[in-house]
């Protein structure tokens, strides 16, 4: 069925200019939203995927450039739902809730971290400010195209405005000396009070409709939070401990905002509750438990357990907590701990895209989606597999055989210059 559809598209393609068509032929193709193809073709036109199918069932448009990828594996470009690459910053130390701050105004697109992310097969990032605030600011969804400005990279809504979510946190990172909260209850109370303010602001906006006279005075913080309340802006919520997770769900339900649970170290303790709330989780898997109290019961089985309960799961690097170049490894560790291979691959790609409202554009090798994909030397979950090429919007953005790119893949002299490692709250434990 799938290949018939592909053939129809290819037939249609025959009458259109074909010079931009490029077919990657002979790889094991893992589309993620469809069964694996042992000997497949990924056909790209310009920035989009035109068709995906089995080699013996597809006819290529004339003048298609054929790229032989026999023996390779092609997967969709990886989606990291929580990255600190590019040295983003959000709010400063002046207050715990700062929805007016945008990471868009702080990202360095020349940061070596972004080049390393491309070397890791990442094509879409949610770049976030840190978790040292209850609300540290607006996040930015970016495509890892080669770009000169952050505007070149950022995803946009149909109206042209940049896409992003809102970063919130609870637990220990945002508990600090005044004016920050000193307890968990105070953390929740401060956040609820702010959301109530935003609710009233949104009501005024809605009451005014388009009548400029009746509109409330613009308030950048409340404006951004109003977007959270309308559901346009998803909350990406740092949370580790089981009770903190439930607090997030409680407040999300009270105010009706859309939320993705991030890190979720103790997801295994409240997996039923997470599943019942239909809350998506973006997990990090680290090499050892602890490092701070709220991560003391971190468990590598979180992915397997949430999957079993039917909850939606994605992964994130939290770069620099883990290295973007080793993002595949994280999913592999989840499989080691019992998650299904299919679930883990989806969690690296399509599920992450869905948690950024980008599921219709990226995350799978599907006709009509952006041509974001990774060419691997072998199985995605083998340590010996190398990421050979990364493509974003039909453009090659990383090539291991290019010495310049290879430097970022392997490391070496100059590979981290400049690289801003943004690890929230790392300084508190600096030794």
């Amino acid at each position: 069925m799938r290949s018939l559809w592909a053939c129809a598209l290819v037939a249609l393609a025959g009458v259109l200019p074909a010079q931009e068509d490029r077919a990657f032929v002979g790889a094991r193709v893992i589309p993620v939203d469809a069964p694996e193809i042992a000997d497949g073709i990924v056909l790209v036109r310009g920035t989009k995927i035109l068709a995906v199918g089995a080699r013996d069932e597809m006819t290529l448009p004339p003048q298609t450039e054929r790229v032989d990828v026999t023996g390779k594996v092609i997967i969709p470009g990886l989606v990291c739902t929580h990255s600190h690459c590019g040295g983003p910053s959000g709010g400063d130390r002046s207050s715990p809730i700062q929805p007016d701050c945008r990471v868009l105004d702080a990202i360095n697109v020349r940061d070596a971290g972004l080049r390393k992310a491309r070397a890791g097969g990442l094509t879409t990032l949610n770049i976030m400010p840190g978790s040292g605030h209850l609300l540290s600011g607006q996040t930015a969804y970016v495509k890892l195209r080669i770009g000169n400005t952050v505007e070149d990279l950022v995803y946009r809504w149909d109206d042209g405005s940049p896409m992003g979510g809102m970063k919130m946190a609870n637990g220990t990172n945002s508990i600090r000396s005044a004016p920050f909260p000193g307890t968990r209850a105070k953390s929740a109370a401060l956040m609820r009070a702010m959301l109530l303010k935003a609710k009233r602001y949104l009501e005024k906006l809605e009451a005014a409709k388009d009548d400029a006279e009746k509109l409330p005075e613009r308030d950048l913080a409340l404006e951004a939070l109003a977007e959270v309340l309308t559901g346009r802006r998803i909350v990406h919520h740092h949370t580790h401990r089981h009770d903190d997770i439930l607090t997030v769900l409680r407040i999300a339900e009270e105010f009706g905002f859309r939320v993705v649970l991030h890190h979720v170290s103790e997801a295994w303790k409240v997996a039923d509750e997470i599943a019942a709330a239909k809350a998506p989780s973006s997990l990090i898997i680290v090499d050892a438990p602890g490092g701070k109290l709220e991560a003391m019961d971190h468990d590598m089985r979180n992915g397997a357990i949430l999957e079993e309960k039917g909850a939606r799961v994605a992964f994130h690097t939290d770069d620099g907590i883990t290295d973007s170049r080793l993002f595949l490894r994280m999913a592999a560790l989840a499989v080691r701990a019992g998650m299904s291979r299919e679930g883990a691959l989806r969690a690296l790609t399509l599920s992450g895209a869905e948690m950024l409202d980008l599921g219709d554009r990226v995350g799978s090798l599907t006709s009509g989606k952006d041509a974001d994909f990774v060419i691997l030397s072998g199985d995605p979950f083998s340590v010996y597999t190398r990421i050979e090429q990364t493509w974003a919007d039909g453009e090659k953005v990383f090539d291991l055989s290019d010495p310049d790119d290879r430097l970022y893949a392997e490391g070496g002299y100059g590979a981290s210059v400049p690289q801003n490692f943004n690890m929230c709250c790392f300084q508190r434990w600096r030794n």
Partner: protein
Amino acid sequence: MRTLQCVALFLVTGVVSAQIAVRGESVYTMAGAVLKNAVVVVTDGKIAAVGPDVRVPDGYRVLQAKVVTPGLIDAHSVVGLAGYLNQDDDQDQLERSAAIQPELRAIDAYNSREKLVDWVRGFGVTTLHTGHGPGTLISGQTMIVKTAGKNMDDALVRPFAMLACTIGNGAKGSDGKKPGNRSKAIAMLRSALVEASIYAEKLQAPADKLPDRNLKHEALAQVLAGKVPLMVTAHRSQDILVALRLAEEFSFPLVLDGASEAYMVSERIKQFGAKVIAHPPMMRSRGDAENATFELGAKLRKAGIPFAYQSGFESYVPKTRVVLWEAAIGAAHGLGMENALAAITIDAAKLLGIDDRVGSLEVGKDGDLALYDGDPFEYLSHCVGVVIEGELVSEGPR
């Protein structure tokens, strides 16, 4: 001593279970070619026989695994001094009141029941070189332990293995404390070594003229006498060269630690004969280590420099790395499977000077083994059992 305890236990309980044999589809002895369908027999804690045609004596418990390796050796860690909760009361790897504190003994701070000890053991680590961490000029002593044992004494292999020294930005004093820069740091270090050598000379005097005991000088004198290596954490090539210069001036045994930029000065390191405990490949490439590469292991191997892998020191999340997984990254980045395995078994044992006891599966060595259900480095493989001195101390799959 340990064996005696085992025998004592055996006599008391009268249970015939102290003896163990491990059968593997592939047995990496690290002392010759990989053996297929071979058996390792452990009697009274020591390896009694290894080979494909070995008969398992009656009454032995037999374990089976796809892959069997020597128990892994983490060539440098802080686990047991640094606890997993990362709170003030479980962090004993660094004391900041003074820049030079060679008298701090690891044995006085090692917590054998720390969760991270259990954690790394579950993945096959049976021997740890652990102790005071990087972060001050001389932070203290290190020790070698097995990852089993209720108390430090049960676990102990060597109480004073190396003296931990850091140079570069990592050793600069905070809050205006000395040393404020590299030159000052090295001046302080040289002064301490000179003072210790004067002290050592005075120790040659007749008994009635001996100097008062000085714990700092005593520890440094061990280094100057060549009995204990100075383990210098240095990442930048310039700092590595400083370490070589110092070792030449005071002729002490040098082990380079971390050594991110060792590939830039590998000829000098090779010429000097220093050994390297390479940084964990997944260490963050920041600060002095900004030029780190996944390929350091491969480059050191190619240069003919003896090296081992370490889990290193982490101050946040993850609180420790697992040396098995670090070597895996090295294996995949130019070093290859068997060379990487050597860097966490026999080569690590040689570097630490404990290869008479551990590091390979040879008759007479400690019965320390790790069992896996596939290539130990593959992400999807599990550790299915860990044996220390003939005792099954962890069961998988992990």
